[in-house]
């Protein structure tokens, strides 16, 4: 039986997130991201009036969209969509025009002054090639992120999406984001 193509995606269970920043530092180390930038981040939400309060944190990074606006606007093809769904930037082809940064509805990209190229989360493709999980997924103390193949019905990811309610951010942008936030 021919293997079905992979479609990598991520489920995020923000309720388990304790805003400890392990994912941010792990990404910085794994991808040698200078301090001025970050490929992932935590959106903090604090509301209420003493003593009726709520606080939450929601991890975010590139949504590895199905119809990525960044790829559509890239004049050189540096930003491209891999068959497994991961959107990557080929540094050698990037001319630093930054159209992709404007096009991205999630503000997930940044321009590295030192290299003259645009950079973003690529689900740690180098780690995936070695059979490892993305750094942010692996290091998390409370395992907020679940990474996997949407086309594998046996995966934890598929199980969660089948059994839990979820939402995606900015569905109206029409880019088909592949980070699913459990409700």
């Amino acid at each position, binding site marked *: 039986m021919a293997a079905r193509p992979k479609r990598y995606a991520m489920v995020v269970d923000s309720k388990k997130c304790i805003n400890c920043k392990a994912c941010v530092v792990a990404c910085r180390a*794994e991808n040698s991201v200078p301090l001025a930038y970050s490929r992932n981040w935590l959106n903090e939400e604090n509301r209420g009036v003493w003593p009726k309060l709520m606080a939450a944190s929601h991890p975010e990074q590139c949504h590895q969209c199905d119809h990525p606006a960044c790829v559509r606007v890239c004049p050189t093809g540096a930003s491209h969509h891999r068959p497994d769904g991961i959107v990557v930037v080929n540094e050698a082809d990037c001319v630093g025009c930054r159209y992709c940064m404007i096009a991205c509805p999630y503000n997930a990209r940044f321009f590295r002054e030192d290299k003259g190229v645009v950079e973003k989360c690529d689900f740690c493709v180098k780690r995936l090639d070695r059979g490892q999980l993305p750094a942010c997924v692996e*290091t998390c103390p409370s395992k907020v992120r679940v990474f996997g193949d949407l086309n594998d019905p046996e995966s934890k990811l598929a199980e969660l999406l089948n059994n839990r309610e979820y939402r995606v951010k900015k569905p109206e942008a029409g880019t088909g984001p592949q980070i699913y936030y459990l409700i």
Partner: protein
Amino acid sequence: MDRRKFLKFSAGGAAGAAIGASLAYVKPFSHSQQKEAKRVEIPTTCEMCVNKCSLIAVVENGVIHKLNPNPENPKSRGMLCARGNAGLQQVYDSARLKRPLIRAGNRGEGNWRPASWDEAFDFTAKKLSETKDKYGPQGTLWSSTESFQEVFFRNLGAAFGSPNQVRHPSLCLASVNLAYSLTFGTVPSFDLLNSKYIIMSGANRLESFITPDTMDLIESAEYRKAKLIYLDPRFTVTASKADEWYPIRPGTDLAFMLAMLNVIVSENRYDKEFVANYTVGFDKLVEHLKPFTPDWAEKETEIPAKDITRIAREFSDAAPRAVYYAGRRSSWYREDFHMRRAQAILNAIVGSWDREGGMVPNGKIALGEYLFLPWDDPTAPRVDEMDKNFPLAAKGDGAYLKLRENVIAGTPYPVKAWMVHKQDPLNALPNQGRTLEMLQQMDFVGVIDIQMSDTAWYADVVFPESTYLERTDPVEVLSGITPVVVYRQQVVKPAHDTKTTLEIAQGLAKRLGLSQYFDYTLDQWIAAQVKELPLEAPLEYLKKHGVYVPRDFPKYGSTLNAEHRFVTKSGKIELFSERLQEANYDPLPVYQAPAQPPLGKFRILTGRRAYFTHANSTNNAWLNQFAPANSLWLNQSAADNLGIADGDRVEVASTVGAVRLKAKVTQEIRPDCVFMLHGYGKKSKWQRLVAGAGGCDTELLETAWDKVSGNASLHETFVSVRKV
């Protein structure tokens, strides 16, 4: 693109002024498309905090690229936190200690001259010997904090003949340890993963990591639907995840516990069989609890009586899968010990002992010991007079604040030389001015550390230790419900002219005429330790795995039989403690209402963020980015009264000091409290990111300690706040 690979070590000398401002990025790029990179993975053990998580270091061409969690260690549960991930900064920080230094100017001026190891050893040995000649060996003080090579430092102090070793517990969990030891004869773990009902007082476990409790709490609270009741005057991350959060009036937790006990006892909700079989003093407890009704406790705690009653009922219904979690992080009040005892008693009478989901005595694994020549025990008494002041406390650890006050007073005898091992007393003890006073009356101060801490900044000699990624350490057992053996092995060669603590101890021992006590190598020491392990080739196993986990370790129930004798006076769990009574302490927890801040003043609270450990990681560039300076949390209503807006600069003053920092006006703290993060406003210019950034809490905190354990009490200080 050309391939980049450069090390951004500051080229230069150790002189403080030479430390550049370049902060941008201190990890070398070991980059992507480098095809031929020689890549090795080495399992080892973290040292960014006290948890000692297992990790796998990825080294490419001799440079650490990444630290990954090691899933083999069940205690670290396959995670590595922000600090663990930032560990490689310790190696590649351009402002780290790189060679021995001897002070050139006045103390605290920051004028250093590089010295050879021989010169630093000779100088230190001369000073220690002079002190010994003049004041006896008891004239030297040896301070250290738990770490894998601490044993060599402590052995040096002991072989030198000093009775004065002071360790971290009296700045940490001494009151908890003593309360549980006197009740159960041991300090147990809490099986949070399997608990159904968890109560925490101020133990902000989701920001103050303890493994595996932090991960287990999230797992059980969010997935297994355990109920979490959380008491804290501040809305922490733990509060935000709790089922119920009560912003309790500070210092009244004991009233809450006594009322819970009152309900459980008066409604016959305790575990009668367990109480009869395993405890002593229940009758006295019943009598003692009568006045402490939920209505009484409501007035003290500001927690509604009906909630206290309901929580007590739910807690006893869920038992034995119910725990009142012990917590740690220093004492808060002078009566801290009794509050911890009340928790222990609550857990005991509902039978949450040595059962799944309750408290569980820690499992242990025996290691062998390298036998070295014994030295004579010191003849002088301790300078903190533990026998007189804290007769039940752990003598070997000392009581830091009492010790400081005695040293300053010169009683019962002078202490004039101070050796400090990887500890920063100026930031760890309340009332920094007093600690500085103690330091300044010393004829000699020597510090061993990996970074120029504030205490090192005021020292006479600074010895640079190799960081945990650059050295191999003795093997350690991490006790717990499932104990494990962890191994720390060298990942990269030392980047600078640094040594291990054993090498430093041996260098000093040689010059102090104590070499006969240090006549061994680290390899010999480790070989003796591991030969007891039930493995064919234990060291090879540890080198390959980094951790050894015993199979089929019995988890629950080893103490639940008629033959078991608890390590207490009666051999049972002591609800009523005769030992306390004999030492003239209350044998059952007695509540004393804490002083409340006078009008216009606030109680200052201390606490943590998940990405910092004490004061020692705020200067790590990868962590500092999350909080470049601290700020003063101030409730919106209190700020309105004082005319203070978010971001305004304020002065915070207590009776012992004043600091200035920015106000964070927030809803997330009681209007009668303020809070600031620890580890800022540093004096050491080599702590580039936090030197003078924000305010230093230990400048404000007043001297207070728990009466039974001597543990520093950090929440007894009232401060005024004004806009500047």
